[in-house]
């Protein structure tokens, strides 16, 4: 009986963590690509990154301004989906 309960716990923990981790890693992957890619773009495509857009070069425009809204989009996507996963699991388990 006790073993059953423990196995159930283990299975549930695995299921929740898998779902959440898949989402977290997906968003993190996009973010890591941006973090790793920005210095690489600066290094290997300096002319492109140095092109002028509205008084700024792309380098400054991206890191000084555009970076923030990008992280907001990523985090709001994550929060919406992560909380959806929680609601689904709560519903399933209560049944």
């Amino acid at each position, binding site marked *: 009986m006790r073993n059953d309960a*423990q196995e159930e*716990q*283990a299975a*549930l*923990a695995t299921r*929740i*963590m898998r779902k*959440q*981790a898949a989402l*977290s890693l997906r*968003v*993190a992957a996009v*973010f890591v690509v941006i*973090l*790793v890619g920005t*210095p690489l773009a*600066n*290094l290997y495509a*300096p002319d492109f*990154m*140095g092109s*002028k857009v509205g*008084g*700024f*070069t792309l*380098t*400054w425009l991206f*890191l*000084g*301004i555009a*970076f*923030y*809204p990008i*992280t*907001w989009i*990523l*985090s*709001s996507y*994550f*929060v919406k989906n*992560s*909380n959806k996963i*929680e*609601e689904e*699991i*709560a519903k399933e*388990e*209560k049944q």
Partner: protein
Amino acid sequence: MIALLFVIAITVATVGLGIWATGKSKSTSDFFVASRSVGVGLNAAAISGEYLSAASFMGIAGLVMKNGYDSLWYPVGYAAGYLFLLLFIAGPLRRFGAYTIPDFAEGRFDSSSFRKIAVTFVLFIGFFYTMPQMKGAGVTMASIMNWPYWMGIAVVGTVITFNVVLGGMKGITLVQAFQYWAKVFAISVPCFVLMAVFQVGTPHAASENNARLKSDGAIKVKGATAYPANVVTMPSEPSWLYFPKGAKIGKIELSRKLLPTEPKLTVGQLIENAPKVVLKGPIRDAKGKEVKANYHDLSQLVRGDKAEIPENTALLVYDGKPEETGVKTPVSLKFQFAEATEFRIWSAARWDGAGGTHGQVEAIAPNAPPDAKWLNPFGPLTSKWGYPVLYTYSLIIALVCGTAGLPHILVRFYTNPDGRAAKRTTLWVMVMLGGFYVFTPIWGALGRALMPALYASNATDSVVIKVPTILSDPLMGQIFSGVTSAGAFAAFMSTFSGLLVSMSGAFAHDIYGKILKPSASPESRLVAFKLAAVGVGVVSMLLGLFVETFDIAMMVGWAFAIGAASYFPLLLLGAWWRGLTKTGAAAGMLLGGLASLTAIIGSMLLDKKVIAADLPPLLRALMEQPAIWGVPLSLVTMYVVSRATAKEIPADVNLKMLRLHAPEELGLSKNYIEG
């Protein structure tokens, strides 16, 4: 004096609001219960308010002014670090119900001994984080009151410490939220005014003339005790200098080390190269008054690598032009002043060919990086040791992982009602921080365009306080400088108070209450807390005196690097990997954290020349930015040692995982703090 009024106003408002809010909630548990009904918006503002420290308010602007593009990684990292916190830590940690890291360590591994190790890092990270706050206080008071640096630290540090000891930082959610909005106002409004008045603001508008000085060319420099803030690198063009009688130069060197492939060039040659000429027209002192001064050749004044100025003197410094000397990139002379003085500098670049130059041309600010280096990636900050890409990535890792390892920030997530609200709050924190940080580089650009003299006096950290004073209406200048001073004050007040509370709490609750004397009564713990607060305050002030020459934002970056190599791996693996054991976690945290700490302290002592060693530049880069090896070292150690000690895994590890990850509706969460 007007600025002082603003500073006093923000202090009184903060303390008063704290007292009012404390009166409304009588006990700690009242506070927590009340805060559970607090909305996401207020909570997010409170977290942002505590987070925006002197580094955010003053330091980033100063670092952007000093080093240009590379410094943008600081605000980006400070804000974007919350994304990692959100993806992996915020929700689970809130649900686990243990909101200090020592509590988490104890709850996750059923081990009270691990608490002791976890608590030491609260102190390491805390002290690193207090140093830049103290520097902020010293610099602000020096700027607005002309106090000596130590006096600003002593007065401000004492006031804040006593406020914490007397309990004035309670009711903290409301106070911190207020401080967030005060800081946003203070960084944005004067910024808009200056941009409108002077029509600059983009980094490119600020770098069209290599940061030439404005009008009078007067430069205040510090003496040898302030090393390396007494170092002045002359521009890469011929410049006229005017020194008052008695000025002492302790050391004259070349501005950079020559590469082995470059022709040998000595300081003596560079001095001899200067043409023997006099300046046409009168010589004026810093106040614009005509002075009697004689022309000297620098070679007549130099004794060894030192020089003494016997009378009011004008002299020409010459640079090592690549086309004349064969060096690859420009070289110039670098002076270390032995005593504080004020000198003037004009450009001698427009040679008239007839034995003289025009004296009215504004000089390039000494110490200022040229436009191309300032504007482009891999500039002076990251290529300091010749490994710019490595340095950049290491800095990014420190900032992004370090945010998730700051003890005084994680505590604040407890005031969220549940894991889902914790995630929503984090999202709003990121929006609020981004809205603030977007202004900080503009200040750096404003400083470069409008007040390049700050480069020469090594005072870029004071840019947000100083720049508003150049508004042509002196009253307006005073008022807007007062606004930014008040913002800076709010910044180091909120962060220093928060750190003081969490560090004194660690002493009183963890070290005294759990380790030294578990039988201590609540009253004696409160006494211990107050004594600890005084002790921590005094130590912070003393450490603050030592760091005047370090950039504020750099120092906070170091606190992040230590957090990234100690707490971040603990929380990440603790929340997601069942196989982590207490021995593994402790080993990784100690090894990664202490190795990073040692590297950083070593790097600071080398910079200050407290210790002397000629280490290879690659090693120096890795010591100054240790995250690139510190974080993997910690993670790998945790994995390997945990594998070896797998029998330590708690029997109820699955239940713990459910507590971390299962939605609250399933009723598996538990509050470690009774609310």
